């Protein structure tokens, strides 16, 4: 790790102010992505501003219509929340499938979304549920938030404060784990909104990061069942291909995981 200056922020405003002072500042939440990268000397922030203990960024609020997870809430807290499990069980399941216990105790939803790893789990839920990402400056719709590999709508220094997930009529998540990293080799989140709208998002598959899957959405719109997807063909165009999965294999996984997610959603 290169030398860096560490600051523990007391509030969101304090964090933003500290950020502005550094020449190359970075926010730190759970550190599960940033710290390994710094240890390998692949990142050299001048200043690290720790958000993880800002009280306003921690906690979960559930109303009849929405589950709001504040940005520095850990995967462990989401996975174990009885309120989340009642309102959107698939979301709690998803959080429980991230990494391993050590990662879940530290890693946060804000860090995961800000990082937008193409194989991360949360982006699939955010996109399929049509969640909104709240920041210290504005509110960003899921469809606008993700902008390709490791890239988001966040501006320099902008802080995610919370994510608000509309409670769906039905939602399910299925994930094929990457054999080595245990991220999503492909994960699919299916959701049917209370309005009846069907949204399906796949992570780990596309070269552009998390994506909607219109072919599957179409098929599920008329017939919400795993069997409805039997005849669906997912194109391998634009999907990732590496030693752990070729593009055609991932295309297959998008369909198979979608079927399992529908079964999971009930």
């Amino acid at each position, binding site marked *: *790790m290169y030398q860096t200056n560490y600051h523990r922020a007391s509030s969101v405003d304090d964090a933003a102010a500290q950020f502005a002072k550094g020449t190359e500042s970075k926010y730190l939440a759970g550190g599960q992505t940033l710290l390994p990268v710094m240890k390998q000397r692949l990142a050299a922030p001048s200043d690290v501003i720790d958000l993880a203990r800002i009280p306003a960024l921690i906690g979960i609020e559930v109303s009849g219509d929405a589950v709001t997870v504040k940005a520095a809430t850990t995967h462990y807290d989401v996975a174990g929340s009885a309120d989340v499990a009642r309102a959107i069980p698939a979301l709690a399941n998803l959080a429980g499938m991230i990494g391993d216990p050590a990662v879940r105790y530290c890693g946060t939803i804000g860090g995961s979304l800000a990082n937008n790893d193409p194989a991360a789990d949360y982006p699939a839920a955010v996109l399929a549920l049509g969640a909104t990402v709240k920041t210290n400056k504005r509110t960003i719709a899921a469809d606008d938030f993700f902008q390709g590999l490791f890239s988001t709508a966040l501006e320099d220094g902008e802080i995610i404060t919370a994510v608000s997930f509309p409670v769906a009529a039905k939602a399910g998540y299925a994930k094929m784990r990457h054999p*080595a*990293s245990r991220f999503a080799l492909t994960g699919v989140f299916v959701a049917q909104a209370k309005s009846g709208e069907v949204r399906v998002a796949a992570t780990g598959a596309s070269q552009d990061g998390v994506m909607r899957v219109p072919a599957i959405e179409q098929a599920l719109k008329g017939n919400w069942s795993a069997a409805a997807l039997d005849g669906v063909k997912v194109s391998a165009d634009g999907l990732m291909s590496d030693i752990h*999965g070729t593009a055609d294999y991932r295309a297959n996984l998008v369909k198979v995981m979608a079927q399992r997610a529908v079964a999971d959603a009930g």
Partner: protein
Amino acid sequence: MGVEGIGANVKRKEDKRFITGKGRYVDDIKLQGMTFAQFVRSPHAHARVKGIDSSAALKMPGVVAVLTGQQIVDDQVGNLICGWAIHSKDGTPMKMGAWPAMAPETVRFVGQAVAVVIAETRNQARDAAEAVAVDYEELPAAPNIRAAIASGAPQLHPEAPGNIVYDWELGDKAATDDAFAKAANVVSLELTNNRLVPNAMEPRAAIASYDDAEDHFTLYTTSQNPHVARLVLSAFYNIAPENKLRVIAPDVGGGFGSKIFIYPEEMVALWASRKVNRPVKWTGDRTEAFLTDAHGRDHLTKAEMAFDKDNRILGLRVSTHANFGAYMSLFSSSVPTYLYATLLSGQYNIPAIYAEVMGVYTNTTPVDAYRGAGRPEASYVVERMMETAARQLNVDPAELRKTNFITQFPHQTPVIMAYDTGDFHASLDAALKSIDYAGFPARQAKAKSEGKLRGIGFSCYIEACGIAPSKAVGSLGAGVGLWESAEVRVNPVGTIEILTGSHSHGQGHETTFSQLVADRLGISIDQVSIIHGDTDKVQFGMGTYGSRSLAVGGSAIVKAMEKVEAKAKKIAAHALEASENDIVIENGEFKVTGTDKSLALPMVALAAYTAHNLPDGMEPGLKESAFYDPSNFTFPAGTYICEVEVDPGTGKTSFVNFVAADDFGRLINPMIVEGQVHGGLTQGIGQALLEGAVYDDSGQLVTASFMDYAMPRADDVPSYQLQHTTTLCPGNPLGVKGCGEAGAIGASAAVINAITNAIGTNKLEMPATPDRVWHAIHG
């Protein structure tokens, strides 16, 4: 057997220290005035080093020195050696290129060191290493066997035309050709044995300290065999004479073979410590471990087996290309030859075998012994062949094996080995029963109705362990003898220190060896201490690898104990005024049989050291040593049967059951043995399903971290069902065979046989990732 003697499941003495963080590993050691080394490593698989500019690095804070490959050559530090001479078919010796500890002219794999920075702190060394400017001229690379043997392939070493180190053979070619000529059926197979990264939990590390007053070096290092390290450093690398070089391998966190070898980093640390006249510490990080620890396996093989009309094997023909990487590591030459082809007879009567092996240089990390070393590769060939043959000949795979099992011992195979004992039917039968083989078709049908593909696969492995008779390995080209030494010191109050040339890096020697001694004397294991891993304390010894510690090292302890007991009996007889032949040792007492007269061990020991009343002419003291050279290899063998379920939607394999029926001879601590089997099986399963080192076309290691190199985790492996069928090894006084490698040797074939049985196609390479299995199913 006492509660702590042979056969008792005693909890490991060493675990308290390991589990509570009190272990003392190389990186835990800090010496006064210690500096830190950071290597400057090649980012290219093949390049000429045109120049190294250290000027910026030398000006950085804390930098003590920047040393280069040219300097180490100028100082006449020896090139790295390969300690086992192999000759090609035409009688020519293997063709080795030079391997300097840091490359002065040419780098041949990504990660090869070209320079080292010595600085006051680890971070300063790292910072400065980034500032060393190396001017490389990239050369075309040959990153795998096929690329290296293709016509027009880039040449790695001028000494080895066509990148071929040797073209070796074993067996009777004419007799094998005859066998195939009369065959009713011939089964053929092409296999890849995937390259593995050892991934010991503790990365390699070294601290070298030079004392200019004494002109003496001390090296703390992560070694499985500190004496061999000292020998090689002294005799071949010109570091210092043996009496001026102390090598200490303290607690070592796993090795799996990768810590047998003497690596450039230790050599450089020693050399640098004299140059800067300060202790030098190097601790490898995980990336360095991926890039520079000797990798394992990496074979391409074509095999054919000939059968008569009754499905009896007539002959086996095997042709293998073995990847050595860019340089010949210490024992690499022996691994795909004498540790591989000599096991190709498996558990079967095979009248004729012919094997040829081409050793190939490639622009990759050097390859050497890794848990099993040659024997997993052999077992994989033979056992995939048997399963393939059973399918092709349309016979039950268990029956085909039974038809061909060796049942008479000793048995001389056509490939050097003389199996001393075994009962292959017993282990197969035990495994068949345990897995309920008869019930498999019903289970398979039920799984099918649930949309799952169920398969069962066998592996009847045999291995040659307890390496090895020195005379035999000497005649095959080994540069060392493979005996072991032991010294037994009985202290004046009767406690016992055992000094062994074996080295524990996770195996539990402190417990097993104590049990062995406790059992002989009828004392508690707390009264016995095991000392190993320090060339200043322990007489010359050969170290731990090849499942040899108990069979060879333990036998040496027995031999030394016999001498101690004989002397102690004389002392007791003298004191008790009895005949030495009437003395028996029980519960820590020397008893006169048939009387109530006895003398406790502490009293005998005290008598030996006070020397007030010893038999005439007897030397004081109670301390003996022994060197034990085995008369043969040992032959652990067994049957593994694996039942899997494959998800046709994802290609993912799950275990339904895994049965291991092993014959290790006598078990000293069954719990430790089971731990060894669990670990070995998990490594075998790792190779079969998950692990594989992959280089891209330019020679970059794609799987250079745990994000891409998949290690087995607890939920990847089943709850193993272990069985033991026992035939005692006649070759050593303990009747033991060794258990350290069996799992890794036998498991892979069982897993792949089960998956190919489930999916109905034989075309499947390791690691059988979900992606590969899915493609095998769906084309």
